[in-house]
């Protein structure tokens, strides 16, 4: 588990504690990067652990940051809640340099947490973790009736879909009419 401390929104975040290393110590000193979520808590993560995220891996591969530069420029993920980013960082640390197991039983059981985790993992492009999460989401409706599935995944009924579609059409019509009127006004 990586430990963290409250950061600030300034460019120089508070000193974070170091994430634990995997058992085998690397021969070459490993480089570290810093990430924070919506709560600005900065997490120090090794480049090895970050390799799980195609998005971050792509961002850091050509940076060539020194330790100080990395610390001064944490990657901001403002669209990810702090506790969710913590889960992601923990997972990346736990699976650093290891083959991923066929199942992961440590994913959150609460619907909303899992929902946010899926969105974060999808955004960060962590393929294996996304697969685990999607499996877990799929398992939530295993052997459930259509009505139960609707409730769990909040799927609208046909009538609700139709009403929403009508509403969207109406809105689009109004917007188009507004644009036409504005264009006519401009022409005058």
């Amino acid at each position, binding site marked *: 588990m990586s430990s963290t401390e409250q950061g600030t929104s300034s460019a120089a975040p508070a000193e974070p504690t170091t994430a634990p290393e995997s058992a085998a110590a690397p021969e070459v000193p490993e480089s570290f990067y810093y990430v924070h979520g919506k709560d600005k808590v900065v997490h120090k993560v090794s480049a090895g652990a970050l390799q799980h995220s195609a998005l971050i891996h792509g961002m850091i591969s050509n940076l060539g940051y020194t330790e100080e530069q990395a610390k001064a420029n944490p990657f901001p993920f403002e669209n990810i809640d702090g506790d969710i980013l913590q889960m992601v960082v923990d997972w990346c640390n736990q699976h650093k340099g290891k083959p991923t197991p066929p199942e992961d039983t440590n994913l959150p059981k609460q619907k909303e947490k899992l929902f946010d985790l899926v969105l974060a993992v999808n955004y960060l492009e962590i393929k294996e973790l996304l697969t685990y999460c999607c499996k877990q989401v799929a398992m939530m409706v295993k*052997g459930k009736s259509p009505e139960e599935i609707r409730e769990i995944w909040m799927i*609208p009924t*046909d009538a609700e879909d139709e009403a929403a579609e009508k509403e969207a059409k109406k809105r689009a019509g109004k917007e188009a009419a507004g644009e036409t009127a504005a264009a006519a006004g401009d022409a005058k």
Partner: protein
Amino acid sequence: MKLSKYPSLVQKEILENMTYSDLFLLSFVSKNTKKLIKSSQTTRLRSIGRIVYYNGGTRDGMANISVKPILHHTNRVEKANEFILKMVECKEDAKNNDSFQLNVAGKLIDFGICGRYNCPVASFLSIDKESVIGSIHNYFLDFFGDSIEYYWVVSDYKLFIPRLQNLSVCLSIGNMVDIADRFPSSPVLNHIENSFPMNNPFSPQSKFYQADSLLLILNVKSLLAILEQFQGRQASLTCTNSFDIRGLTEFVNRWKSGEACQKLEYLKVIILPTTEISWTEMLNAIGVKQIDETKTPPTHVLPRVRGWRCFGQKTDPIISHTYVVRETDNHVASISVHREIFSFGVWNKTEEEFLAMMD
């Protein structure tokens, strides 16, 4: 948790992790959800080779997707089938509190969830059986597509056979006693097989002779009747008592003259090992032709008709220098005789075309 808030790739991945029975249930949630399944799972749905409905036997009422079994080195077989749903007849007062109704292709059907397989169970009264099965089949045709092969496998003596679009009927019965007589108005069957020797031939008017494929254990009398009257495409016949080889000679001569078995593609006859067989005598009697010994004969192999099973998808290959020619269209059949096995494979080629394959 709103499924619709996920990006489409995530939705696709979630659906990919669902079983077919869960997708089936999900498709009833709304029209848009059904559309989403069909559009995001196109490849998966297209890869389904066959859907099998079992009637009778240990899988009575199951509808499943027959998938290729994964055989482990420990001989443990994994995933030979994926259940979609189970259909059961029930009594009027047998309603379950947990049941729910679904509108399946225009018919309201009671469903529950089977704890053992975690799959939906459709229950219905006996008088509704035909219409319920029809609605479920129509729903499958729409949901899974009509390019899939659908099989109705009958394994009990009640012989219930629904008449439905795109449905091949197979009969897999232990003992064939009197079956054909109790089955007078049967549709033309796709495949018939048994596991106990058949001691009485089907009646001469039986539609069983028109089945596309036969896999039978039978006595001499029944074997001769089939060799005489079979109108289907493929047959594998195992004779359980000593056999007069003239039955085969007559069969080949009738085939050559174009009188019999015009649709036949493949025939294999296994004769009791204790029977004394003079293959040379038989080959002389049917006037076989020989391919030049220096040439390698072509291999005759075909997809098997009995398609509801995933294994044994092809007929046993026939590689033989010996062949006969049908007089009516000059088409060729390779003949192989080996120990107690007689194999006959018809080519969709004239003698000239057949010989040209070896040039």
